[in-house]
């Protein structure tokens, strides 16, 4: 190739030589590059899986610079950060005890180390997670991850916990422990004796199950019970209902009045809160310092199921986790479930409205399906046929006996051309076949003597002369 180019330069000297030489060098360089990249590509023909984009790609190390990857990386990290890390940080600031029942549910999957971190042996919420995030191994894995996926190095701080913070946290834990122990000694009241040990754990600070912007967290409130059976069943119900949403945040008995940021919860709950403040003897302490509150007495917090009851009926006696009896609203004339009456929301809408609602909905649906794609195959034919059929049904149009020779448009196998032509061809073929059959009795040919042209001419001349 290069030689050819050189010969060309011989033919076109002067100005073009420079350009051609430069082009030769660039092409040569390009060739080299392409060769090497080809080789590289050949080497790296395997596919890798990017956990961030959840895609297999064969782009190798280039993949982390692609904008799609950068985008998915940012969402990935922010998701992990917002969900898991922020919860852990929360517990870092406000340590709360972890009950053994909840610990099995508090698994934390660290995406950088790709391991689960259980909370099996821990006494405080997320303690294992906190320790993990502060560990050197995690730091190493985090850095490797960032290198592999091209994250910025300031992310390192976001996803680890420094030693100082861990130390602070441990101090807080210890102080909490001491507090609780002392408070337990001081506390009097309807503590069930044999269950003292377990309940000591329960009486620790009330931390709300904190899910950012998740209204379902409303459901995650445990009743802080004394009567063992009731407590457990209630909590089991409530916690099971709630845990489906919250994987890594444990439920804690909570301080209802002080703990709920109003914006997170629907109106009813805030009403309930307000209703309760009167009952509470504890101070309106800042959110998470509720260990003291409990020391003053037992304040029941109720799961959503009991919220309604609390709003309607009397509050329970302090401490006892007995179910409250509500004063039933005056019985509605309509009856109730047992009498088979329609539910109140049904009546409220009103039947006519329902019908009106249904009809447009139905007609919308029908409209959707009726307006079949007008571009679909055979749409015009279908419309025509539908009209015909309707008319036949009505009896207006007598069903014309389909032409016995009607054939659908069919693109035949050994035929090129449009489908209409195929039918014509077929008709032709049929005719030919018939003709073959018919034409067997042939007309006998007239046999004539052969007269050559010369003879013909001679004969003609003779005739003229004659």
């Amino acid at each position, binding site marked *: 190739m290069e030689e050819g180019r050189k010969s060309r330069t011989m033919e076109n000297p002067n100005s073009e030589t420079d350009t051609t030489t430069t082009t030769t060098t660039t092409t040569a360089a390009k060739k080299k590059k392409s060769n090497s990249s080809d080789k590289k590509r050949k080497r790296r023909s395997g596919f890798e899986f990017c956990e961030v984009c959840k895609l297999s790609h064969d782009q190798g190390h280039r993949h982390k610079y692609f904008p799609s990857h950068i985008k998915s990386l940012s969402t990935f990290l922010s998701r992990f950060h917002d969900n898991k890390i922020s919860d852990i940080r929360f517990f870092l600031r406000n340590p709360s005890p972890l009950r053994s029942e909840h610990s099995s549910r508090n698994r934390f999957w660290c995406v950088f180390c790709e391991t689960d971190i259980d909370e099996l042996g821990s006494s405080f919420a997320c303690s294992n997670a906190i320790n993990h995030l502060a560990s050197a191994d995690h730091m190493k894995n985090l850095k490797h991850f960032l290198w592999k996926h091209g994250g910025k190095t300031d992310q390192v701080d976001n996803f680890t916990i420094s030693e100082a913070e861990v130390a602070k946290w441990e101090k807080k834990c210890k102080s909490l422990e001491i507090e609780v122990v002392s408070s337990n000694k001081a506390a009097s009241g309807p503590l069930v004796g044999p269950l003292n040990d377990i309940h000591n754990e329960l009486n620790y600070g009330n931390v709300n199950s904190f899910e950012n912007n998740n209204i379902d967290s409303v459901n995650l409130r445990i009743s802080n019970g004394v009567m063992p059976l009731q407590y457990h069943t209630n909590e089991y119900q409530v916690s099971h209902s709630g845990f489906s949403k919250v994987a890594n945040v444990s439920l804690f008995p909570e301080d209802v009045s002080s703990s709920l940021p109003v914006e997170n919860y629907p109106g009813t709950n805030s009403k309930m809160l307000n209703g309760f403040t009167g009952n509470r003897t504890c101070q309106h302490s800042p959110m998470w310092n509720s260990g003291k509150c409990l020391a003053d007495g037992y304040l029941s917090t109720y799961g959503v199921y009991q919220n309604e009851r609390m709003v309607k009926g009397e509050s329970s006696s302090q401490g006892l986790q007995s179910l409250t009896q509500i004063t039933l609203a005056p019985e509605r004339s309509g009856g109730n479930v047992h009498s088979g009456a329609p539910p109140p929301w049904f009546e409220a809408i009103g039947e006519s409205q329902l019908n009106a609602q249904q009809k447009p909905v139905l007609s919308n649906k029908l409209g959707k399906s009726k307006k079949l794609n007008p571009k679909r195959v055979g749409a015009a*034919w279908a419309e025509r046929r539908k009209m015909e059929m309707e008319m036949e049904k009505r009896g207006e149009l007598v069903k014309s006996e389909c032409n016995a020779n009607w054939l659908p448009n069919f693109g035949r196998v050994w035929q090129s051309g449009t489908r209409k032509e195929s039918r014509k061809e077929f008709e032709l073929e049929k005719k030919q076949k018939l003709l073959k059959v018919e034409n067997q009795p042939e007309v006998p040919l007239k046999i004539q003597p052969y007269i050559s042209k010369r003879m013909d001419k001679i004969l003609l001349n003779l005739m003229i002369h004659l």
Partner: protein
Amino acid sequence: MSYVLNTLTKKREVDSIISDTIDKVLVLRFGRASDSVCLLLDDVLSKSAREVSNFTTVVLVGIDSEDVQVYINYFDITLIPSTIFFFNAHHMKMDSGTADHTKWVGAFHQKQDFIDVVEAIFGGAMKGKLIVNCPLPPERIPKYQLLYKDVEEESPLASASDICCLSK
């Protein structure tokens, strides 16, 4: 198996079913109820006919009747079972990598294969396509040899009255 599905023997019936099936895929199976491969196909068809009944009608045509011979010639049916798809009286072709796009020759390996094929046909028809691609992988498409028509007519095995069965 054929008691589940209609079997037609007259051209008039075939005509009427083609022209009366509106906005639904019409699956016309041409075959012989006693043939082994036909039996396989009929089994699959009858079991899945109900599931696709919202958008498909499945009909069997016996090729042994005289009346239907014109269709057998017209549709160039030389191997049985052959299945032809119609939508709104328009013939739908499917490219399954075989020589003949105008019909499906042979049985299906699974019910789901048949359902996939019919769904592909329906989808293509709704979009206005007269030919669709086959969604099945090549190993699940029965293979056959298609000889040129004249050759076939001459060969004793493939005369109109004695259509040979395909071998998979």
